[in-house]
């Protein structure tokens, strides 16, 4: 086994025992990136020199036994998350030259714990997409099958972990952007409750739905990373004061007697793949054997969640991306006046899907349409949230497939925005309601594509979803 193939837990033990050094581990990841990135395109920027310098420092700390829990562990970050001194483009040319002067809070916490930044992951530009084809730096290919998409928007982060280019990665999930690519690439991806992890330094997409979370190879590793990055942040007033649970401990508890809800609406979605359905049902059976109570439940407003999502997100997007004017930073295109500088810079710096989202949002928020779209969507959001609040009185977690189908072909949905939006149908309801959810590898289709199992919990129920996730059969 190569060093870059280790889980965080295995690497921690090996580093602490002195079986290998942080420099060797980091070099193994860098070698893998060099070998595979030209094909997979999971990284936009690689910080080779700095990563090796950091690894040398980490080795000193490991030797002196003074490092944090992640000392010497190499990781990667979605390019829509700010990293001090390291270019952060959000996969859009408008930020091609943008070097943030600060770290996002999650990055600060990971660095304080000793983790080593390897580089920045390709993604759908500003998080807009479900296939990673909306990147201005080219699509990410799925390491399990290079003709397939890696999923999106955090596709590069999922692919990097799946292909052992790093030990873990940090992504951003607004409507499935961590869980769906995790499902397509066969890794674990956690979207925490809204407000659990700080969004400071994360380029905003839809501020009322955005969350930041980890991609790892095991649920155990996710529990560890989440326990490090979660918690209130004075730089993000939407973070909640709730105490962060001891997730690594919590996932080890017995699941006997836990109530697992099966929401029928998710299994009746049009176009759901039979193999995906079968694998999910087998995992439900497996949880039953382990002593969980399986309870059929209904979330009647499920079918409206995607429409709500695709009104709220473009609306908040169009507002958030108003700041991308290139007056102070970013790639400026000169025009004959200020207005032309805006319109040309934005025309050249945004890919088609970003423009589409901004246009939809501008339309939905414009005078005369606000009540029909944005307000209506927020009202239905209330009903969706109530659905979840009601159901979590009866069950501890919900189980569904992460995606109605496994990874699709590159180019297959690229010219049909609505078909692409429908890829988020299983994952977006939890976001609309602000619930935590994890995607865990649950099996493979006959053609060798991973299928993710989606576990949704009540707000601040990360421990419960990870505990069930840890019991999904590999």
């Amino acid at each position, binding site marked *: 086994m190569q060093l870059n193939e280790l889980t965080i837990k295995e690497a921690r033990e090996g580093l602490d025992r002195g079986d290998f050094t942080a420099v060797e581990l980091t070099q193994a990841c860098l070698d893998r990136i060099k070998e595979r990135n030209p094909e997979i395109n999971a990284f936009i920027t690689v910080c080779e020199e700095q990563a090796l310098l950091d690894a040398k420092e980490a080795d000193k700390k490991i030797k002196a036994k003074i490092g944090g829990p992640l000392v010497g562990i190499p990781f990667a970050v979605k390019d829509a998350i700010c990293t001090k001194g390291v270019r952060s483009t959000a996969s859009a040319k408008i930020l091609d030259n943008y070097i943030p002067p600060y770290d996002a809070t999650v990055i600060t916490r990971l660095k304080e714990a000793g983790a080593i930044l390897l580089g920045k992951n390709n993604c759908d530009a500003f998080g807009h997409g479900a296939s990673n084809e909306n990147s201005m730096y080219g699509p990410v290919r799925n390491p399990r099958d290079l003709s397939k998409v890696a999923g999106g928007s955090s596709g590069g982060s999922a692919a990097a972990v799946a292909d052992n280019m790093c030990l873990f990665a940090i992504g951003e999930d607004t409507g499935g952007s961590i869980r769906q690519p995790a499902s397509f690439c066969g890794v674990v991806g956690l979207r925490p409750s809204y407000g659990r992890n700080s969004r400071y330094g994360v380029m905003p997409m839809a501020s009322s739905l955005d969350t930041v979370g980890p991609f790892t190879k095991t649920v155990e590793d996710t529990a560890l990373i989440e326990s490090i990055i979660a918690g209130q942040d004075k730089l993000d007033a*939407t973070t909640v004061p709730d105490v962060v649970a001891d997730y690594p401990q919590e996932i080890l508890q017995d699941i006997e007697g836990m109530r697992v809800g099966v929401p029928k609406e998710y299994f009746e979605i049009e176009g759901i793949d039979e193999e995906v359905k079968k694998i999910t049902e087998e995992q439900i059976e497996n949880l039953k054997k382990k002593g969980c109570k399986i309870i059929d439940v209904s979330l009647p407003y499920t079918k409206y969640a995607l429409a709500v999502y695709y009104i709220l997100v473009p609306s908040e997007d169009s507002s958030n991306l108003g700041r991308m004017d290139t007056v102070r930073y970013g790639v400026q295109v000169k025009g004959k006046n200020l207005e032309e500088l805006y319109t040309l810079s934005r025309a050249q710096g945004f890919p088609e899907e970003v423009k589409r989202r901004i246009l939809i949002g*501008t339309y939905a928020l414009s005078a005369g349409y606000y009540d029909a779209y944005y307000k209506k969507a927020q009202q239905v959001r209330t009903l969706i949230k109530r659905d979840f609040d009601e159901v979590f009185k009866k069950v501890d977690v919900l189980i569904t497939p992460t995606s109605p189908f496994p990874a699709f072909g590159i180019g297959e949905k690229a010219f049909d925005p609505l078909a692409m939006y429908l890829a988020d149908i299983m994952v977006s309801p939890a976001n609309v309601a602000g619930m935590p959810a994890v995607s865990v590898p649950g099996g493979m289709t006959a053609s060798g594509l991973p299928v993710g199992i989606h576990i949704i919990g009540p707000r601040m129920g990360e421990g419960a979803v990870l505990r069930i996730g840890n019991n999904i059969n590999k």
Partner: protein
Amino acid sequence: MAISIEEVQKIARLARIKLTPEEEQRHAETISVVLDYMEILNEVDTSGIEPTARVTGLSNIYREDVVEECNIKDDLKNIWAEKDGDELKVPAVFNEESEE
């Protein structure tokens, strides 16, 4: 079509994005399909339902206004779009040619 090319032109201007005629056509078509899909929400009776803007239940989060060290002057200067030494340039914000 739920949205016309003229409406696309209008919102593109509001959003400060220059579109080519081909883009205007494509966006009119694809946005119409998306807006048609949104019609599903008309099935839901929302009379008397409060809109949800946030899910945390938090409101009015205050903190002390504390002065902190912030040594990022050079970093900020380096990312500035246009500069001359320590002088940071911005495009003219008021000008006669502007259609505003």
